[in-house]
């Protein structure tokens, strides 16, 4: 079992979600985060004082998937979250051990 984590632009959630449904990845957990990557933030002013906006709102998606479709899920997210502009985000995959569905107590692939 793999946990796919993706940081995406908030506005791309819609497209990503639909595309994931189409490939049968239904479960997903989303959280609001703020992040920045290589680019330095832009300078803005607040009440006349300059400051750098270094953190930009993003969404973090966490998707637990069977090993078999992990790559497909990553590719699907990458394609659908892409705008081509800086700040599109990252995706990473990490292996997961035991998985449980709380409602039924099922484990492993059945838990998804």
């Amino acid at each position, binding site marked *: 079992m793999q946990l796919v984590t993706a940081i995406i632009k908030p506005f791309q959630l819609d497209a990503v979600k639909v595309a994931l449904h189409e490939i049968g990845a239904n479960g997903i957990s989303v959280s609001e985060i703020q992040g920045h990557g290589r680019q330095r933030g832009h300078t803005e002013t607040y009440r006349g004082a300059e400051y*750098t906006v270094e953190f930009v709102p993003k969404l973090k998606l966490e998707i637990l998937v069977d090993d078999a479709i992990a790559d497909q899920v990553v590719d699907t997210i990458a394609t659908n979250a892409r705008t081509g502009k800086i700040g599109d985000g990252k995706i990473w995959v990490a292996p997961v051990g035991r998985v449980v569905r709380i409602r039924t107590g099922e484990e492993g692939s059945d838990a998804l």
Partner: protein
Amino acid sequence: MRRKLLVALLAGGAVTVLGASPAFAQGGIKAAEVQAVLDNIWILVAAVLVFFMHIGFTLVETGLTRAKNAAAIVMKNLMTLIIGVLAFGVIGFTLAFGGGSDWLGYQGWFLDPGYFDFGNLTIPTYFIFQAAFAATAATIVSGAMAERTKFISYMIFAAILTGIIYPIVAHWVWGGGWLSKLDTPFIDFAGSTVVHSTGAWAALMGVWFLGPRIGKYGPDGKPRAILGHSIPFAIIGVLVLFFGWFGFNGGSQLAADFEVGRIALTTAFAGVAGGMGALIVVWLTTGKPDVGMTGNGILGGLVGITAGCSAVNNWGAVIIGALAGTLVVFAVLYFDRVAKLDDPVGAISVHGACGVFGTLMVGFFATEGGLFYGGGVDQLVSQLIGIVAVLAFVVVTTAIVFFVIKATIGLRVGPEEEMEGLDVLEHGAPGYAGDTVTVGASFAAE
């Protein structure tokens, strides 16, 4: 006491300072003078209530839009007031209430005392009340165009609307213009058409030229709900507007007399009936008692009664209000699904549809001259003429203005700005900043 004396000295106050505590002169002041003062004080209080409505508009518009645009929308509302008072003061007031032709006023600039006569009301009192109205027409537009309009473009538009377009409409109806000179004069007591429809038609044109927010319509053309970020803001805004409306309609009597209470009552009845009407209709239609729509219903009822609040009786008010509330629901659905005009707060439905409806209803429900009270169709015809004339004038003029703005400086922010939110990119800071993440980010770059 001493302060009073100093004050009297400075101001040449009309009222002499008098005897014991609580003290009053034993003579000298005429009742008519006191009545005139009372008229002015009441209209000032009413003007403050109308100003207060801008808080209501701000809350409704902020609540029904997204958090990422919160600073931008409150800023537009703030500028509406600033620009409204300035533009109406410098140009609009003369166009509206100065001496002139049937079409516009052109005598008496900058509140020149030699040119204006408002009976018991002093020029400042009258002006403040009217300026608050002018700003109301503009603020309707900011709601409909929310979440995608360029700040500078909105500012320019608001100046033209409050400085020129609205005043000309006001002149026609309230400033001695042609609509007030029809054989059966057009009746729009407090502005269902003059203020609300004018704002709504301008909003309609604005939304037309702007197009919908990104994501509002799916690839299949179906509308999607873009939820407002604070229903409490929106509903508190509705309540603020409701209470401000007592000043809006009650103050339009332009005098303190026994009629004011009656006007306040028809206003209240229409407002609550509008809310009830919208609630029932939306509940039956969609299966849920929608909060925002009920709020829109109240506003629809209030807009609906604004034209006839002095001319109809309580029953008329309840019926007009309930029908206006019903109308709002269908109008919102129509603009959203059929016309595909993306109006985040329902401004066109509330102020346009109900403004027309309410103006028309005067022709039916006016206890003097209304069709239902044996008055024939004369009033109804006049109402129709007024509605169509204002519609045509505002649609054409605002279309020209929006066209020129769009062709020159542009009307809409870039897609990136729209998606990330207007707050940071247009105004430099978010409407809602986190406590620490932002502090973490806040090295001054100088």
